[in-house]
């Protein structure tokens, strides 16, 4: 769904919604979306299997006192059940008039961090809880980047993947490499060079481009099902809603074992994407010079792919 659509397509969430995220075989988890006014006391056991807890706070809804004491209350309950739980606080909606400058965002984060710390001191045993804060907005990539970091905490083989990526980057003289979950555009891992937000954004936008273009030209053109969809969208327009979701799904279907893309930029950087495993993509930023030896790059990516495949096989089906 596009950010614009959330303005009028979403209704408020009445009960916890469960969503299994298992599009790729490296990062699989269950996501539970809670309603904002969820009465935590009566549902305490829900924290039992929880490994990670994301709290979304509306930065445009000041003052924050109430919502923050609600948050600290939740943290206290959660840590009692699972002392090793990761807590992530998304300070969302840092966009629009109120947050035109980066300054304003940082100020907002600083205020919230100190308020939460103050609150937490009133509880016992919360000294060791590690709370991480992210500034997010659905109108830019911050929400993807932040969620990536949350998901990375859930990937069991993170260290191994990271060292594989390091080797790849070094062998090919690349600038940066990400391993993406194609469906969500979250990155599961990256090499240990620092992540530059702009580079990440480009890679993530590239995935959109690849899926969109493949959705247009890379479909099974002659299939009857395709024809049907086309016909009914031209017809009375019945079930238009459904068509749309079908094509979204289908678009992911057009990402296949030979999916591959290269985008050349005027500053001499090439973005190179290759399928690694179903719904996983390796996206690298590399200089045009290094990309000139494409055969070698492809060979090394092949080695990386094999390693990831082995890793998944060893881990076995979940």
């Amino acid at each position, binding site marked *: 769904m596009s950010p614009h659509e959330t303005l009028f397509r979403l209704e408020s969430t009445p009960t916890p919604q469960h969503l299994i995220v298992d599009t790729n075989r490296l990062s699989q988890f269950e996501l539970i979306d809670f309603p904002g006014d969820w009465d935590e006391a009566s549902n305490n056991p829900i924290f039992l299997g929880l490994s990670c807890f994301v709290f979304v706070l509306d930065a445009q809804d000041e003052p924050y006192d109430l919502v923050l004491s609600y948050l600290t209350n939740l943290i206290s309950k959660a840590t009692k059940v699972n002392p090793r739980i990761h807590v992530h606080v998304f300070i969302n909606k840092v966009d629009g008039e109120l947050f035109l400058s980066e300054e304003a965002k940082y100020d907002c984060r600083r205020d919230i961090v100190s308020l939460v710390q103050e609150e937490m001191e009133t509880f016992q045993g919360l000294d060791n809880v590690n709370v991480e804060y992210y500034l997010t907005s659905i109108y830019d990539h911050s929400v993807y980047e932040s969620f990536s970091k949350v998901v990375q905490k859930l990937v069991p083989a993170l260290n191994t993947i990271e060292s594989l990526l390091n080797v790849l980057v070094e062998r090919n003289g690349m600038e940066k490499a990400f391993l993406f979950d194609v469906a969500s555009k979250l990155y599961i891992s990256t090499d240990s060079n620092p992540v530059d937000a702009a580079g990440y954004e480009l890679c993530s936008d590239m995935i959109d481009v690849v899926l969109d273009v493949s959705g247009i*030209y890379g479909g099974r053109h002659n299939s009857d099902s395709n024809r049907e969809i086309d016909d009914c969208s031209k017809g009375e327009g019945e079930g238009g809603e459904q068509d749309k979701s079908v094509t979204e799904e289908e678009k992911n279907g057009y990402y296949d074992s030979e999916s591959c893309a290269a985008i050349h930029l005027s500053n001499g950087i090439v973005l190179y994407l290759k399928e690694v495993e179903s719904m996983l993509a390796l996206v690298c930023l590399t200089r045009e010079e290094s990309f000139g030896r494409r055969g070698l790059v492809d060979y090394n990516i092949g080695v990386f792919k094999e390693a990831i495949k082995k890793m998944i096989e060893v881990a076995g089906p979940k």
Partner: protein
Amino acid sequence: MKKKVLLMGKAHSGKTSMRSIIFANYLARDTMRLSPTLDVEHHHVRFLGNLVLNLWDCGGQDAFYESYFERDRETIFRSVELLIYVFDIESDNPEKDFDHFSGVLEAIEENSPDARIFVLVHKMDLVHEDERDVIFEDRQRIIQAHSRGLSLQCFATSIWDETLYKAWSEIVTNLIPNIQLLKTHLDDFCRISDADEVVLFERATFLVIAHTSQNAAQHNFDAHRFEKISNIVKQFKLSCGKTQAGFQGMEVKNSLFSAFIDAFTENTYIMVIVSDPQIETAATLINIKNAREHFEKNFARS
């Protein structure tokens, strides 16, 4: 070559938004910050090198219409090549919209009888998908009924999807003089290089200016694909802009197709679609290179 283009319609109908997205690299959501246009804003936009569109973006508040119709009547409506009239699908006062519309057509008929007329039924994203066709048909009927016998073409548009590019591509290609010849050369190129499709885009706006296909019947492609590609590439160009890097070209493939989108002549981009697995990437790239030289020579000054 200068062409005067009038952009008219009720206040808040989305005229400045469309113009800013197509010609000034705005993102759709940036338009939420636009303030109402006061009087007429003039903009010169260069298209395909030496075609200059002289856009008159006419603020739509009632007070301005009085002067458009009275005091400035001739200034505004004289020597117009294109009239683009915008209706807001969510208008709270449709009758009044049609009063203005009739007034504008009358003034055009009087001052620029040869002007081509396009009517955009805009903000269609606010209508439920299932109802868009029906509602658009209905609007189109009412618009035709008010057309005073002038010939005009209607489009359903929204800044939030590819319909915007569809409408503006068709409008603008109407102003390109040797478009037919360009198309013939594109046909030849498509055949020679064994491509499924070749599409030519204007470089700055990424509007489609010509396209050609072979064996299209057996493919059953999406009818809105060219505009979708415009939209996709334009979005990506804007993302590149944020990193101070320009977009040069791309290659996307899966097991069934390869797409090449590349800077072509000075004022165009080309897209070549190949689905025959026998055709090597290198061969397609050489074909594009050769065609580039040929087109530069023949269409250097369009």
